[in-house]
């Protein structure tokens, strides 16, 4: 047993330990109680927002959410009121969880500038059975923060990509980009191009743990099609029928496979299914005439034009069965393409690949 194999149970045990600690050490309470509050009914009776949200005018960040407590409600309502009017499950009523703000927003400043007109931003308030619809970023930018006010730095922040000036942690933000970075269409194939230039923009929202689900193909436990089996709406490249499609797809775009997969991965699966380079292979993928020069199916012509398909099965080190024939003095003759000498004028003595033949 070598060092890496000895490490295996240690790493495995540590990971299981973390999971078990989570399982037994921290279980969040179940919020079966939900507050039911008819905003419009209260507004229709002439109530102002600040009659209930009495501290919102001095709230400097969203951790001061100022959800009114019983004492505020009891200023108008009968103390003997039916609890079920507001609580969906009064027996499970518990203190509201501490706000976990993901946005830097100062209510105090905004309320002063808007002269107390909350509805300029909060155009749609939560009602019973209808969740709150919060102001969108586009609404902020199209109304006040339109770049025309010199005192408003929001457009400069946006232009400089300083999302963190407002979004405290985009990784936790449930919103998705709507316009220029919208992940629509064939985003699966488009996103690499955007990431090559705008990797910093990607990382504003996506930590590398998100990328590694798909891109850590060399180390990941299982592919995203397996681990995210419940996301049938996602564009994943290896859906169930991929097994049948992959020879055609790989022939049409071999570089696409090479980006993530090593040839060892191809070979291990091909050998398991007995479509590999084994001499006893009962399902040889090669057509008749493969070994005969002059045949329309001759392997030499195919190899020149699609060498990656050869490499998917055959050993690509010095022990390749092709080298058995294609070596100096071998029956296969010179393996190099016709323009090889113009690209490689000398034998690279430091390259073991050259030294397989050119001793």
């Amino acid at each position, binding site marked *: 047993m070598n060092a890496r194999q000895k490490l295996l149970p240690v790493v495995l045990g540590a990971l299981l330990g973390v999971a078990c600690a*989570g399982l037994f050490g921290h279980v969040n309470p179940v919020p079966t109680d939900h507050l039911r509050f008819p905003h419009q009914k209260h507004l229709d009776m002439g109530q102002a927002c600040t009659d209930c949200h009495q501290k919102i005018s001095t709230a400097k960040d969203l951790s001061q959410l100022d959800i009114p407590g019983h004492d505020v409600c009891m200023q108008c309502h009968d103390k003997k009121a039916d609890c079920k009017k507001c609580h969906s499950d009064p027996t499970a009523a518990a203190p509201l969880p501490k706000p976990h703000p993901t946005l830097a927003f100062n209510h105090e400043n905004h309320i002063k500038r808007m002269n107390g007109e909350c509805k300029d931003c909060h155009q749609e308030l939560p009602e019973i059975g209808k969740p709150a619809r919060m102001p969108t970023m586009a609404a902020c930018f199209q109304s006040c923060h339109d770049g025309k006010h010199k005192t408003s730095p929001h457009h400069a922040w946006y232009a400089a990509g300083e999302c963190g000036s407002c979004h405290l942690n985009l990784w936790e933000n449930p919103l998705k980009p709507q316009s220029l970075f919208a992940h629509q269409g064939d985003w699966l194939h488009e996103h690499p191009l955007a990431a090559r*230039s705008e990797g910093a923009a990607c990382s504003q929202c996506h930590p590398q743990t998100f990328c590694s689900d798909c891109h850590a193909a060399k180390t990941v*436990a299982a592919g995203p099609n397996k681990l995210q089996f*419940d996301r*049938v709406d996602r564009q994943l490249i290896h859906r*169930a029928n991929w097994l049948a499609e992959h020879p055609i797809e790989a022939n049409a775009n071999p*570089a696409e496979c090479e980006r993530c997969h090593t040839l060892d991965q191809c070979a291990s699966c091909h050998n398991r299914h007995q479509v590999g380079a084994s001499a006893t292979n009962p399902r040889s993928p090669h057509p008749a005439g493969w070994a005969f020069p002059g045949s329309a199916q001759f392997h030499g012509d195919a190899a020149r034009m699609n060498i*990656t398909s050869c490499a998917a099965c055959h050993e690509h080190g010095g022990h390749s069965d092709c080298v058995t024939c294609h070596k100096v003095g071998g029956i296969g003759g010179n393996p190099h393409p016709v323009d090889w000498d113009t690209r490689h004028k000398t034998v690279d003595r430091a390259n*073991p690949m050259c030294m397989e033949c050119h001793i």
Partner: protein
Amino acid sequence: MRPPSLGLLVAAGAAILLFALGARAATVQATATTYTDASQPTYGDAESHTLVPAYELVDVTANQIHMPWGDTAAVVLSGWGGVDLANDTGTSGPGADLNLLYVEGGAFRHALTFRLGRQFVMNGVARMTQLDGANLQYVVHHIGLQAYGGAIVTPRFAEPLATTMAGGRLFWNPTLETEIGASYAQIFDHALSVRQEVGLDGRAVLLHRLVLDASAFYDLAAARIAEAVGDASWRFGRLVTLGARYQRTAPDLFLPPNSIWTVFADDERRDSVGGFAIVTPAEHWSIWLEGLGILGSNGNGFETTGRVSWTQRFYSIGLDVHTLSYDADGHLTPRLYAVWRPGDKLTLSGDLEETWLQHPMNGVTHVFNASGTAAWTFVPSWQLALAVLGGDTPFLSQDVEVLGRLQWAPTFGGQR
């Protein structure tokens, strides 16, 4: 098999140190996933085998760690371990590995940023390379310089064909949507240089509607373009986006650079060119269509892809269609999926996928697979998901899999 690399050990040490320094100030997001996949596949030996691997996957991101010099740092870990509960195939099953383990932070109000440990390097000609190493970036007045280097991550139980990589990128990003960069990367197999590439890349948004993306990478050793991609799209309001795309790749240059196969390959080339349309005809509806013509060294063809979907709060339904015809071969694959969310806690979904092969594969021209899934968030942060997948393939005469996943995804801290 290699012992843990130096970069990984350094990152592990740094991670422990930073956890100790800043645990009280950090927001910690974690995901612990227990996953199993039970199946009875039939391989080339025509016998039915039983496979039941079980995995534990852990992702941890501890961010907003306040450093003594005023900037913040983060520690990111993604790793897993697994065992075979049943495996009669005679092959080795799951093991354990780290996808990521790095420390990132900044100095000088984040003008200088660093990332140390197992990570992805993604910009420019680095593409998306998994490295055990260091990545530094300095940005001043919208001009930045990135430099990285380290050991290339090798798949478990495989011999490395390239051992180290070093490179850098100079870029200018005047706005969030615009960036232009020039990059260089060199790959080594021990002391032997096996690949050298230079690249140009850029993204620009003009008139708030025209998005241009392009990159071109040139292989200095082969003296030709390894990959070039150009993409332009125009948004007509919120309803329609039209675009065009061109891509060239040299498939043989994607082989391991010191493979014996590079001796045999001629200058391979694959070009694809086409266009796409994204249409939102009404609320909840989305349509996108794409068509590409392919010109390759060993054949020509075309590829079309499309999706029509309807999504609202409780239901999602979509139809995907993909066709490929290339080198006198091809397939047509429609896929129908549906998602039903009867409440906040339960999601039911299923999909049906059908493939018609132009030429028989092991005597099969028609392939069908289907799945049904239930995901239940039984308490906040906890989700249990189960799925049954089944169908026919040309390789496994009949395949049924049962998948299960228990996931816990809490967030701790958050004080700012």
